[in-house]
């Protein structure tokens, strides 16, 4: 029943999915942290930018963002992100699109973590003369990260599944392989089940492990 699977590079496709997810996760964690810092910062312009960015980007469908990176940035404006062949360009554009989108959710998850840190701590830190950067970097964010592990895990799981949208611009990941297999084999249900199983293998441990980590590192108050 599953013998047609030998003709396809299933592991290779899922490896691309993992690469997409890991690179986008790292990128959106960095950009999301910067956004969160802007949103809680003292400069009105940055606060405004952070708020506007999050509210605009998270309300645009991911497919539109990913297609825009290819049709708009690449084909119309000629942005190629330092690559020459179409496959690498598409991969990088997809990572860019996923980072731009996911970071708005990372920002909000982190901000909810920041809200768990009692205001008194930030006030006390300011009172002994720490700057905004020091208050955020040494006092607030370390605690905020520890209490937002579980919401961040949710974002990561969503991100892993969102990588399938990259198939829209031709990144050869699991969803694209699924389309090829369905086109050739006429085995819709079986193929979908195999791909769904692959994603469960990726996301289920992620959720369990990060849930455990979240409990372990949570700040006991």
């Amino acid at each position: 029943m599953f013998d047609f699977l030998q003709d396809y590079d299933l592991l290779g496709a899922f490896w691309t999915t993992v690469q997409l997810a890991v690179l986008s996760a790292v990128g959106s964690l960095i950009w999301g942290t910067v956004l969160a810092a802007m949103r809680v910062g003292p400069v009105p312009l940055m606060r405004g930018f952070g708020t506007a960015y999050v509210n605009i980007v998270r309300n645009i469908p991911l497919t539109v963002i990913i297609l825009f990176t290819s049709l708009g940035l690449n084909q119309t404006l000629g942005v190629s992100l330092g690559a020459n062949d179409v496959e690498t360009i598409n991969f990088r554009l997809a990572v860019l699109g996923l980072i731009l989108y996911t970071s708005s959710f990372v920002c909000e998850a982190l901000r909810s973590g920041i809200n768990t840190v009692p205001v008194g701590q930030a006030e006390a830190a300011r009172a002994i003369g720490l700057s905004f950067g020091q208050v955020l970097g040494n006092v607030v964010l370390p605690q905020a990260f520890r209490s937002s592990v579980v919401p961040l895990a949710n974002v990561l799981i969503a991100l892993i599944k969102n990588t399938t949208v990259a198939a829209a611009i031709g990144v050869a990941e699991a969803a694209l392989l699924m389309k090829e297999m369905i086109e050739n084999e006429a085995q819709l249900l079986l193929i979908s089940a195999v791909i769904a199983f692959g994603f469960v293998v990726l996301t289920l441990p992620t959720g369990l492990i990060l849930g455990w980590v979240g409990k372990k590192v949570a700040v006991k108050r």
Partner: protein
Amino acid sequence: MKLRKVSAASAAVLALALTATACGSDDGDDSGSSGGKKITIGIKFDQPGLGQKTPGGYEGFDVDVATYVAKKLGYSEDQIEWKESKSADRETMLQRGDVDFIAATYSITPQRQEKVDFAGPYLLAHQDVLIRADDDKIKSPEDLNDAKLCSVTGSTSAQNVKEKLAPKAQLQPYPTYSACLPGLQNGAIDALTTDDSILAGYAAQDQFKGKFKLGGFKLTNENYGIGVKKGSDLKDKINKALEEMVADKSWDKAVKDNFGPANYKNEPAPKIGDIKS
């Protein structure tokens, strides 16, 4: 209390929606006063020249063929119910009995024949490329190796390019053929590749007239058949209808009507059961 109001309101909306759609689909039955029998046919809704949904109804070569076949089976035009059958859903729709037959750029392949039966073929298409009308770089299939090609994600044409036709070519897959066209127009993409019948449909669209041309390379053979449920007795009846369609020249007329403006040189009507590999 508030919850009850909301659910009552949504129930009302749902009921309204149901009655509204019921009205819509009843219309066909009422006008076709001959006992209300209907035939459901699966076509593509988004392929100009083959099967396209327009504000005024449905048009394209597949639609013309399906209408003719339905007529020979004893159904008039207003007894046909059109259903969209996307490529990935075609086998399932036939197996479940959602549609009586499918004429939707359905190439006959051995894998598909295991699942469904095919009448026809009714059209022999070839994989080809659509290029800018002023492009003189792409003259032979070998030239494609230096070109940037576009096709639909996961489609047979996209896979053929990667595996056989031009392994060195750069391939940009998109979810639809229409997404390839802006890039083809502004030069970011050199060629759009898929079956020539589909390409001819795009080139014949009003907004693209004179901008694109077909390469004429005949890269593969695609035998379009009419899919029916495995073991269905429709297969022989449809084959007979297709033979008549070719014999009384309706087939030639349908080809000319739908592909004419693109300067598409069609193959002669294929013989029933003659599947070219």
